[in-house]
């Protein structure tokens, strides 16, 4: 039996390696395929792009071609959406394997996932569902983070959720829960400031207090996004983490405060639905970059004063 194929060496593309791009102090945007040509035509340097890992878990085709192209020129952040780290059941090993393979293939500058769950038994709910904050859940979530970090061979950045309800059984605050996870697993954090603002409004606490209690030293990435407004059962304001518009003024202010305290951290403008043309998204990222640069200059002035 003999076989004739067009090109015998089909594995060539699997072993490709990408250049290293620094992500420190940069602002970036979600990567949407419809922007690829505009981004390349822009001939822009600087900035980074974040992708949802699951969109690149197919075997091949245009998604991988687009991501490989963008990864050539820019740092990439790989953002997992449905590992279900916050769920009570064991992690899906097949999904974890796919996630690990993407980390190996694209060598992303940042790798993150959510403090949430989305799968129960065999059903996938396609949403970031909340969990109670208790001694039992912190132990299990820590074990899940360990398992992910073992698989990918590097620290994971864990994202704080936006929440609409609270669990009666919770015994810890979200920040205490997150600090405990950092302590137990050595994971890093993705601080989503829009999520902080949304949750604080919905749960009736102060976003500034939350941020003061948040372990900023462990934050490796920041998310900024737009939110929508609804009403709760008593007719009070309920914010929805909708990712469908510009970042709100309140969130920009909180971002400025956080960067003032922590110094520049890679910051992403998340925009996932009602996606605008590339120039609009680029302007939002430029606004974030301006704040990062301002604090970076302030920090270096302080440093030079100290050494003078």
């Amino acid at each position, binding site marked *: 039996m003999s076989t004739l194929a067009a090109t015998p060496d*089909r594995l060539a593309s699997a072993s490709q390696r990408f250049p290293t791009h620094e992500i420190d102090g940069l602002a970036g945007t979600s990567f949407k395929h419809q922007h690829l040509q505009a981004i390349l035509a822009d001939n822009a340097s600087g900035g980074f792009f974040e992708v949802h890992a699951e969109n690149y878990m197919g075997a*091949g085709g245009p998604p991988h071609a687009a991501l490989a192209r963008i990864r050539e020129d820019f740092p990439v952040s790989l953002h997992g959406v449905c590992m279900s780290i916050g769920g009570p059941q064991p992690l899906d090993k097949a999904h974890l394997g796919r996630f690990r393979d993407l980390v190996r293939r694209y060598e992303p500058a940042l790798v993150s996932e959510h403090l949430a769950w989305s799968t129960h038994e065999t059903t996938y709910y396609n949403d970031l569902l909340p969990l109670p904050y208790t001694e039992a859940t912190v132990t299990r979530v820590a074990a899940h983070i360990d398992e992910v970090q073992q698989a990918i061979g590097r620290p994971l950045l864990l994202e704080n959720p936006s929440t609409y309800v609270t669990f009666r059984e919770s015994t810890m605050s979200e920040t205490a829960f997150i600090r405990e996870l950092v302590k137990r697993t050595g994971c890093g954090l993705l601080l989503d400031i829009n999520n902080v603002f949304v949750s604080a409004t919905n749960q009736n606490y102060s976003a500034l207090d939350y941020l003061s209690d948040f372990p900023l030293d462990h934050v490796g990435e920041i998310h900024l996004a737009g939110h929508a407004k609804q009403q709760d059962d008593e007719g009070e304001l309920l914010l929805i983490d909708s990712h469908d518009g510009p970042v709100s003024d309140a969130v920009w202010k909180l971002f400025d405060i956080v960067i003032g305290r922590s110094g520049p951290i890679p910051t992403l403008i998340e925009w996932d639905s009602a996606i605008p043309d590339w120039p609009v998204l680029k302007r939002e990222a430029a606004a974030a970059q301006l704040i990062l640069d301002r604090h970076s200059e302030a920090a270096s002035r302080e440093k030079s004063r100290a050494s003078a």
Partner: protein
Amino acid sequence: MQAPSKKPAVPLEGSENYAAEFVPPLLDPERETPALVSGPDGKAAMKRFNVYRNNVTVSLIEALAATFPATARITGEAFFRAMARFHVRETAPTSPLLFEYGRDFPDFIARYDHARSMPWLADVARIERAWLDAYHAADAPALTPETLASVPPDRLGDVVFEAHPATRLVRSDYPAVTIFAANRASDPVGRIQTSAPESALITRPDLEVAVRHLTPGADILLDRLLSGVPLAAAATEAASHCPTLDLATVIATALDAGAFAALHQGG
């Protein structure tokens, strides 16, 4: 009907299994808000919980709308969303990869009462589902006509083709390819002039998914070839259904479409 649920390895006791209490109302509007959640200071949480209900249902309807745009264009948005909502509630996804979702949707459409006047709608949806499979399929170079030409004529009958990973065949008793093509683009849809059965050959030799209309007989031939039947046997079978079938043209079309990845010579 879904496959029986797989239980977690370690049974979870009492309130530890918050997920089991949280999920039943997500896709069932008749069920009440789970008692384990509240608003701040014990406030009622019905509207708050409804945010999750809405996120789950609407995002899955939108996932179906994104996979089946021609189907949605044919039915209109309100019809499509109502139909998709029934399907989401009946058959929620079992994979976190949304591009895998909707495999059961064409069959659902085929038995959906309100779609009975559009008997071809399920086949259009089958073409769209195959289109997405082709889009995400593994990359591989397509078999070239030169490679086939290098096979000695006396060995041609034994040749077995290997399907390209992206290749799909959808057979229809209706003009599903014409209807698909007319509704997949954004141009205005004119009157569909044909009523003849059409089958679709879906391929993606490089980065562009292509959908070709196969004439009767050509679909049988390609179906057999893609299943690994040797060329001579596949040709004989197709000719018995369609004596006028032009074998060389069908093979040339398939090669041009990039339907095959390789060929094997028996012996």
